[in-house]
């Protein structure tokens, strides 16, 4: 950049071009973060949504003897995406369970609209360190759910907390976020209600 033989104008233009390339590069870097992000999360153990399984394991749970002297509090939390015209709530908001025992709770969903809508629940566990120790044996979140207009359903969840759950964790929260599926994702077409119309 600093060649004294060059006229100032030429040097200025050169420097400006180099700097503009940096700007373009950083703009690209922002977009490169989209694929890199999941990769980085996987490497560093940060939980991105794409990696979050909420213990969605269908394989058989190792049969460990329940530990009757230990109680763990499970809290249930539900969120419905604004684009999904549903009500969705846990039938019970907290239960005390013994690690190693199988429990069942019921979630209630109702389609507030009068047309058929398909949604999918995405689970997550807090603290996230507990995720691998929370096994769902049967869950409405394994499949997409379709409700016709006004339909009301009870959706069961059968789960078990592994006795291997680290000792420090005495309470954990299972959170469901119910998303609307677009027709392209296997949802059923119905009158368009987008986030923007609602907003």
């Amino acid at each position, binding site marked *: 950049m600093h060649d004294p033989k060059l006229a100032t104008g030429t040097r*200025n233009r050169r420097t400006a071009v180099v700097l*503009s390339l940096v*700007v373009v590069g950083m*703009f690209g870097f922002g977009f490169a973060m989209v694929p890199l992000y999941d990769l980085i999360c996987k490497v560093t153990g*940060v939980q991105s949504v794409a990696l979050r399984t909420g213990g969605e394991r269908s394989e058989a749970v190792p049969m460990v003897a329940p530990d009757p002297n230990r109680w763990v509090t499970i809290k249930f939390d539900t969120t419905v995406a604004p684009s999904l015209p549903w009500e969705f709530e846990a039938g019970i908001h907290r239960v005390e369970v013994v690690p190693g025992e199988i429990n069942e709770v019921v979630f209630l969903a109702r389609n507030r609209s009068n047309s058929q809508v398909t949604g999918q629940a995405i689970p997550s566990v807090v603290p996230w360190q507990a995720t691998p120790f929370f096994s769902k044996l049967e869950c409405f979140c394994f499949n997409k759910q379709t409700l016709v207009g006004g339909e009301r359903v009870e959706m069961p969840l059968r789960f078990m907390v592994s006795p291997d759950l680290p000792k420090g964790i005495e309470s954990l929260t299972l959170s469901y976020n119910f998303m*609307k599926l677009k027709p392209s994702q296997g949802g059923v077409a119905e009158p368009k209600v987008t986030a923007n119309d609602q907003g």
Partner: protein
Amino acid sequence: MSTTTLTHDDAHHHETPTGWRRWLYSTNHKDIGTLYLLFALTMLFLGGASAMVIRAELFMPGIQLVDPDLYNNLVTNHALIMIFGAVMPAAAGLANWMIPMMIGAPDMALPRMNNLSFWILPAAATMLILSFVVPFFPGGGTQINTGWTLYPPLSIQVGMSMDFLIFAIHLLGASSILASINIIVTLLNMRAPGMKLMQMPMFCWTWLVTAFLLILVVPVLAGGVTMLLFDRHFGTSFFDAAGGGDPVLFQHLFWFFGHPEVYILLLPSIGVLSHVIPTFSRKPLFGYNSMVGAMLAVATIGMVVWAHHQYTVGMSLGAVTYFMIGTIIISIPVGLMIFNFIATMWRGAMTFETPMLFAIAIILMFTFGGLSGVMLAVVPADMQYHDSMFVVAHFHYVLMPGAVFGLFAGVFYWLPKWTGHMYDERLGKIFFWTNIVGFNITFFPQHFLGLAGMPRRIIDYNVMFTEFNVLSSFGAMIFGFSHLLLLYIVISTIRGGQKAKARAWEGADGLEWELDSPPTFHTWEVAPTIK
């Protein structure tokens, strides 16, 4: 002098263009600097007005003046106007005025681009203001209730005012990127023969680092809000979890910009202090080399600690530990800068003119804000403090002294140079005291509010927080109205006053003080020689 831009200037060399053409077509760094500063002053009052409404609403618990969405819209707009409309353009105004005069250059390196980077701003400000007012018109959609951080999913659901805002951010970003390129090119290529990089005045150094930070992080913000725009209108799901995206990704992109941005706001004011403190201590700046080193360290480490704004999103223990340690490490070079300032004053023949009063107040209050920053950097503590008024108190204690008051100091310090008149020192001091006292009454109680659990960005609060909020709002009235005095001082100094000498302050050192006050329209057409 063989460049096209310079030949163009040579054509109308000795007459100053007049009327609106002088300003609209200006390629003169002094005129553009003036435009930037006037623009920033206007925005300071707009942003201040929204802050006064916020504090008026918070005067009492309950909802009195505005509705919750409008309240959050005001909070959003206040932050964006102050950061992008007031502080950054004011700093750019100082850069335009001072850098060529300080390094002995006839003008900025790319004068026409300079014109463009200023004149984008009024358009951007219009967009920004529209994003605030559009919801009041029929069919205008909902208000921007996200705060300046624009987190999805909320920002995806906001009505069309968000599109105005995204466009405004693109324009503001383009303006500061162009200005930064210009400043870097000027500093690298246009220094007077013989002036080495390590001899540049410190203000130039701070701006060199600031400009590099800007071109590195503003494009990432631009990318982030572009993705937001795509998610809103073109069916992509960068941040929409329903479509496989991740809202936390936006937070990373935002804070990758957002944390370096705080240094972008801070550093030019550190540059001003590096001139004000030696001038009024009548000693050269202590530790020039360490100052440059500390600044480079702050900028480098500052690029990789962004996620201390996101401790609560559920990162792994390893990640939060890394971000915590990185953040705390930054306070070491920042502390070194403060140490250098104190050492510069040590046993100096100090006098206390308005710029110096601001400088001393900045050192005290900024250090205090840095301390609350270290508290926030500690993960388990931040789990409590996050999104509370404590954070609001922290960043006002660093940003007001660290950015705004530093710019005030610069304006008082260089006003005699720009206008040729001394400002009224008595009025300057009255402004200083009302401003500083008002500031502390406003923001000090917010530390306690935050620690006691009052959340930020919420219109209503528990009655147990009433007393401190009353106090804070009372201080805000003093603080807000004190700026009318600033306006008066600036206008009256432009219009007249005691004639300023070329070296307006007898302790001042540097090339800019060898020029007349006010300087002629073109300066340093023959580069000075550096001893």
